[in-house]
């Protein structure tokens, strides 16, 4: 089974986003960028499938600027076989990303697409769902556990009220949630080895995808800030404040 893993280069999850003074977006100059954490979980799952000989080949694909190649290298260092880099300097919307990924999946003959449930920058949580519908494949959203069997997957999903298990016929898309696995750190020899693994260079035009944005960003602002309140002495004082000052109990 060929497994495709889309990976996105995003602002590192430990770095606080800062809005540009002209309100045109978030300032990404001179800040640490990393692989989207949910995509890292997807890469780990794909590599584990390969180690268990369930996956015959693993391919990481990233759509983004020249530096997105570093994100692909990270995936290769974790154990993915090869990469596809679709270069663009535009900040593409999930709809355009899903269209490109559909074309890549078809060109590669992927049978399973493992991807993050959302990217932590734009927080749309839409690409996986869109991609699955475009391909006409079933989807297992928010995977907590994945078991493979002949021609199908059993996915335990994180849902609002607990956990739900579904069976999906392959080919399929699965999006990863936090508890699926703990991604490995790439070892130095594997980082060196990753430098020799192939990355194919592509552009959105190679796939004939119209990437024009559908949404117009009017502005991006700082959120309303909350002022720090007061410190109370003890539990009795806390109850007094909540009851008599705030009136919430």
């Amino acid at each position, binding site marked *: 089974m060929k497994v495709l893993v889309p990976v996105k280069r995003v602002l590192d999850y430990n770095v*606080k*986003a800062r*809005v540009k003074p002209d309100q045109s977006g*978030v300032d990404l100059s001179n800040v640490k960028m990393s692989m989207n954490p*949910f995509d890292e979980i997807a890469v780990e799952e794909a590599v584990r499938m390969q180690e268990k000989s369930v996956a015959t080949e693993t391919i990481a694909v990233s759509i983004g600027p020249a530096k997105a190649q570093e994100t692909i290298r990270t995936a290769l260092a974790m154990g993915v076989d090869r990469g596809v880099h679709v270069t663009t300097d535009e900040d593409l*919307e*999930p*709809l355009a990303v*899903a269209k490109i990924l559909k074309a890549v999946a078809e060109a590669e003959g992927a049978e399973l697409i493992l991807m993050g449930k959302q990217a*932590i*920058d734009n*927080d*749309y*949580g*839409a690409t996986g*769902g*869109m*991609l*699955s*519908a475009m391909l006409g494949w*079933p*989807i297992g*959203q928010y995977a*907590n556990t994945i078991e493979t069997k002949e021609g199908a997957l*059993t996915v335990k999903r*994180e*849902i*609002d*009220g*607990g*956990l*739900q298990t*579904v*069976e*999906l016929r392959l080919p*399929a898309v699965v999006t990863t949630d*936090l*508890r699926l696995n703990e991604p490995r750190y790439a070892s130095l020899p594997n980082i060196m080895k990753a430098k020799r693994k192939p990355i194919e260079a592509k552009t959105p035009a190679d796939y004939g995808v119209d990437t024009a944005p559908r*949404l*117009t960003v*009017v*502005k*991006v*602002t*700082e*959120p309303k800030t*909350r002022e720090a*309140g*007061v*410190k*109370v*002495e*003890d*539990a009795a004082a*806390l*109850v007094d*404040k*909540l009851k008599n000052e*705030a009136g*919430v109990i």
Partner: protein
Amino acid sequence: MAVLVIAEHDNASLKDATAKTVTAAAKVGGDIDVLVAGKGASAAAESAGKIDGVRAVIHVDHDLLEYQMPEAMEATVVALMDGYDAVLSPDGKTHQAYMPRVAARLDTQQISSVTGIEGDTFERPIYAGNAVAYVKSGDPKKVVTVRTTAFAPAGEGGSASVKSESADIGDTGSAFVSEELSKSDRPELTGAKIVVSGGRGMGSGENFSLLEGIADKLGAAMGASRAAVDAGYVPNDWQVGQTGKAVAPELYLAVGISGAIQHLAGMKDSKVIAAINKDEEAPIFSVADYGLVADLFKALPELEAELAKVGY
């Protein structure tokens, strides 16, 4: 102009998130119809007709809609969209799982988790709520998920008729196997007036009983930080934050939670925040209205006793 609102329900009853999404739909403007897609959900459909401002309720009953699986929901919603200019759903996981499929079929860029609608401009948090984007959509049909904590529920008093429609759901390629739902007599996390949340500082799952006593006294829902869920102290569906649930109760009590960006993203719109943490430098105190710097193992029994003194 007509807007379709997708109801949140568990087949037995309609959830509050539906009336909140109707409020958001009213800001989009036009006639509002509510879709109740499920199995044996006619009571929920009747309730949806009572929401103020609803023109009609469309009730689709189908075996494959019992668990509102993404593939079946996609087929059901897309088939109705000829008659609508926009479709809105709450942004819970059930809906987030299928709405992008609807958007793709309509060749539309989804607008996710909106917290405000002003004319044709949608407001939505990005970067875990560290920035707020205001966007306009050029798509002829809009697909929107709504952060329901940001909208008040529409009132009751409507008398919309319920019309049944059938769904043509083909081979979906997916099948429901089983469900493990957390059983609780407490209110639901996203709709509760008071939320009591614990973090890594709780130290173990057993220690959450210290919080549960307080939650039960206050009639509160239980929540947790990602750290507490990752450590296996409590179930995943208790998680509050960027990738968990967004809550905005009257009172959010955070205990043993340091206040990572990702956690604050899910609770900083609460009306009042109270925090108990032994580290006075913890970031949670920078958003808390009331902070108690104390060892939680000492403070929680005291808090429970103090609540008892004032009648809880």
